[in-house]
């Protein structure tokens, strides 16, 4: 119930005039400075709402008189980042792969770029850090199918393997299976021999029989006399003990690969839209993973 505001005799303050059952409320106004700052913040908010995007509408929103947009800001930042990169990128375009590896700053730039491009495009098959997977070569080891020099790596990335690009790396492991060429016993002996090349055969007699099969069926043409492989045709080194199709029972895996070989495919990244500079970055990165020659 409202009564008249009066001066309180105890505190010397005025009351608000509100009274409930004889209890009156003292009027204790907010400090003036606080009130003023409060008003200023309100004014600030009004000005802000006019200058910047603020109120939702039916078909859109109030865009503000300054034309600010956080996307424009991001675009600007991207432009700035591009401009910052441009110095190195132009250097990278002109430099040869050997030059890039020798120039420490350029190398660091290329490695950083290469890592992100690798993780976006290559890691799906080759794994983070290039560790590979079943059927997808490990790029960090020292065994290469198509060569581990900078130029070899660049060619493989640019044109790919066994795809429709005319420059793509091409080769085919013939199928020896189905009883037409080799029967199961011969396949077993051959696999023992292949295992023995990396000193992992447990049956020396079978391996000795397999050696003749290996020599007489044209295996040496691509894989070499001692199974050292041939990178010109992507023939794996069988003596390295590193298997593209690694399984618990490696002998069975070898037999399967001789009988009905899987032919791995890699896309051409030049066709997929990576430009020359990006492929250089990728090349340098892959080369740095540990196996580069």
């Amino acid at each position, binding site marked *: 119930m409202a009564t008249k505001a009066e001066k309180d005799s105890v505190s010397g303050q005025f009351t608000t005039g509100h009274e409930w059952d004889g209890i009156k409320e003292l009027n204790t106004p907010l400090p003036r400075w606080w009130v003023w700052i409060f008003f200023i913040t309100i004014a600030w908010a009004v000005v802000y709402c006019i200058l910047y995007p603020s109120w939702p509408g039916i078909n859109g929103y109030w865009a503000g008189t300054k034309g600010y947009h956080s996307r424009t800001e991001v675009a600007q930042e991207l432009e700035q980042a591009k401009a910052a990169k441009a110095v190195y990128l132009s250097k990278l375009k002109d430099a040869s792969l050997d030059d890039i590896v020798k120039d420490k700053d350029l190398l660091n730039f290329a490695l950083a770029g290469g890592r992100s491009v690798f993780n976006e495009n290559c890691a799906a098959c080759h794994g983070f850090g*290039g560790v590979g997977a079943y059927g997808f070569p490990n790029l960090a080891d*020292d065994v290469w199918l198509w060569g581990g020099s900078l130029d070899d790596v660049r060619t493989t990335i640019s044109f790919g393997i066994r795809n429709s690009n005319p420059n793509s790396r091409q080769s085919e492991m013939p199928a020896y299976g189905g009883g037409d060429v080799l029967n199961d016993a011969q396949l077993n002996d051959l696999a023992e021999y292949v295992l023995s090349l990396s000193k992992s055969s447990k049956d020396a007699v079978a391996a000795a029989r397999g050696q003749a099969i290996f020599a007489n069926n044209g295996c040496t043409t691509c894989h070499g006399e001692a199974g050292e492989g041939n990178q010109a045709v992507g023939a794996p080194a069988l003596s390295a003990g590193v298997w593209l199709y690694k399984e618990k029972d490696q002998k069975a895996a070898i037999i399967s690969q001789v009988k009905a070989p899987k032919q791995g495919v890699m896309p051409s990244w030049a066709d997929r839209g990576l430009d020359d500079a990006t492929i250089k970055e990728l090349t340098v990165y892959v080369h740095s993973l540990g196996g580069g020659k």
Partner: protein
Amino acid sequence: MSVQNTPSPTDGGSPYAATKKAYPRFLNAGAFRRLKWLALIVSLGFYWIGPWLRWDRGPGAPGQAILVDLPGRRAYCFGIEIWPQEVYYLTGILIIAALLLFFISALLGRVWCGFACWQTVFTDLFVWIERLFEGERAQRILLDKAPWSANKLWRKAGKQICWILISILAGFGFIGFFDDVHLLLRDLLTGEAGVSAYAAMAVIGGCCYLLAGFAREDVCIYMCPYSRFQSAMFDEHSMIVSYESWRGEPRGPVRGAGRGRPAEQLFAERGHCIDCRMCVQVCPTGIDIRDGSQLACIGCALCVDACNSMMDRVGLPRGLVSYDSSFNQQARAAGDMSSSSPMARPRVYIYLAIIGLVAILMAYSLMTRKTFDVNILHERAPMYVEVSGGRVRNGYTFKILNMVRGPGHFRLTVEGLNKATMSVIGVDGDQMETVDLPVDGDSVGTFRMFVTAPNASLSGKKADLTFALTNLDTGKVVRRDNLFAGPER
């Protein structure tokens, strides 16, 4: 302890007390005033001259004696150079500083507040300038009350200009410790210094202007935590500014028939305090020390000087207001005139012992400071790589911290892993038993390296190995344990 400036609501007063501006009177006499000048000259002298001191560290290194190089991540103090890893030296200095404060407070009360604190020193300087322009206490009070006139305007404006100039210098003095002061000064004047330099200067200078020019004693009374916990630092043996009420009361002015009579007669039947209020007028926080020790007293002892000069004039013994302990005061009030030393307490020696211990530890660690260190990171993607010939390879990133000026030569060997060999990217050679790694002076050398070992060297999924890095210049060896991962078996 009564708190004069903050009356409590229980006293019946309002919980809000309007700040009464203090107009400290300047009395250029007395030992404590001289001590204050000395403290001002020494502290501001170090503050403004410190960055300009030079120290030759050879080519390529900063020539500034005291420098905190934040972008370069180094701190220099004459012959000492600290890396970010050694920030514990800063901790040590802070511990010593805190203990020194405890120690000196236990002995001498708030001498830090009264003489050496930034707030006190700058306020002292600002008040002195205020007096140059606006005159002594009484004139300043009148000037503030007077309406605006040309006279008031130029006095106020002159004061403000001087204050602002000093504040700018205060800001510059601070940032001078964080950058090459010669280049910094040039860049500041030509407007080419970094935003952070101007911002730091604005913050420090602005604080100096506001706190020393306007807030003044309110900083000590309301903002600074030290006055709140000083009661924990003191005991009855601490020397504090104290009024000998047993001698001074009942107080009263000397007037009328009293004048001209010899002091012994005049003061036979009354207290020695002549209520001249000099002690109140000179007080920078505007309190009356005769109310006893209080929160707002910063222990500057200017009232001691003021009272002594008055006592001299009326021919009474000095020391009615004096630097004394409350223990002594109680004894004197009871008639015992001997005084006990504040040193005769165990806490004083405990503080001293801890300070000494920390100082010795710091000195020892400085003298035996490592000149190099190494951080090793095992590569995780991939954890290991199987390479040809039934071998396993692990990658590591090596960071060698060479903390001396000249180039360092380090030799790395692997221990604890059978037939392990190394290769380092950027260093010629493959399958090496030892690798020599050069690192430039005063820098961190980063190397990516591979350790290769036959699969047979591992008994399980992983093995322990130890890297031993020998400094070929000093012969010192640092060993770091790490792991070598291999395939599941």
